[in-house]
């Protein structure tokens, strides 16, 4: 069967550089290579950081901090694991530092000051997810930075203990202990609020 050959020359599609090639380019001084890495991975970073920041301004700052850390430490990226894994570790580290800083500076407010109540009808199954998320975020502000980080990664992002261990650099057994304590503390906060 004769093959139909088009006489139009095929346009060679430009090869899309992978992350490792972009890292090499950025290390060689190509600013646009790093910009491309930012463009590719910003959604994931925003998604993770949005669990920790309280407003848009904080979120933007936090994401910029993540990419600045990535830029400064780019030479340490060995390419053994995918770039996004390396970036995820940087994101968690930046978020943890953010939580510690925020805990030092945040105003001390009681749970009573919050407009939502655990006994409020809005917390029923029909309640808006956003209101419940805000309530949880508020209760979590009573926790320490590492407890907040663990709860967010384990319960909200649904990550395994092994993943959390990899992301935080803490041992798996340490992660399990911290997660257990964080849950207990959070439960205690909720119970205290319920008793009021």
């Amino acid at each position, binding site marked *: 069967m004769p093959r139909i050959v088009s006489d139009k020359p095929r346009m060679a599609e430009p090869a899309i550089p992978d992350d490792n090639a972009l890292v090499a380019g950025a290390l060689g001084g190509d600013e646009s290579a790093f*910009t491309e890495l930012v463009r590719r991975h910003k*959604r994931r970073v925003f998604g993770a950081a949005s669990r920790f920041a309280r407003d*848009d301004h904080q979120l933007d700052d936090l*994401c910029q901090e993540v990419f600045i850390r990535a830029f400064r430490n780019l030479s340490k990226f060995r390419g053994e694991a995918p770039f996004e894994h390396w970036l995820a570790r940087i994101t968690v580290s930046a978020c943890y530092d953010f939580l510690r800083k925020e805990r030092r500076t945040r105003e001390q407010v009681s749970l009573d000051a919050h407009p939502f109540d655990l*006994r409020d009808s809005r917390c029923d199954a029909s309640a808006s997810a956003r209101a419940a998320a805000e309530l*949880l975020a508020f209760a979590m502000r009573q926790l320490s930075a590492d407890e907040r980080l663990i709860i967010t990664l384990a319960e909200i992002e649904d990550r395994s203990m092994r993943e959390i261990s990899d992301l935080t650099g803490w041992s798996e057994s340490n992660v399990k202990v911290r997660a257990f304590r964080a849950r207990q503390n*959070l439960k205690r906060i909720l119970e205290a609020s319920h008793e009021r």
Partner: protein
Amino acid sequence: MSDNPEEILQSLFSAARAAQPDTSRLEFGFETRFGARLREETRGSLGTWAWKLCPFFAAIALAAGWWNYSNLRSDADAQIVVEATTSNDDQTLLAYMTGEHR
């Protein structure tokens, strides 16, 4: 709503999981903002380095000044000796030797 804190916690966690905030508005133009901050940080770090290197350059300037001054003095001494020997002026030579000539 249930009084069981474990159930409350679970319902709050599942609600939080479901409420992934929409960040697309913030993501828009992020590269530009980030680029500006990166340039600012780089400039800032250059300024920091310049301040750190300040004492080093000050020490170099002082050393150069001292070297120049000592060279000028030895040049002046040499000039007097030349003057004294060429003009055979014993008084000048004597004054220089005794330290009266400055």
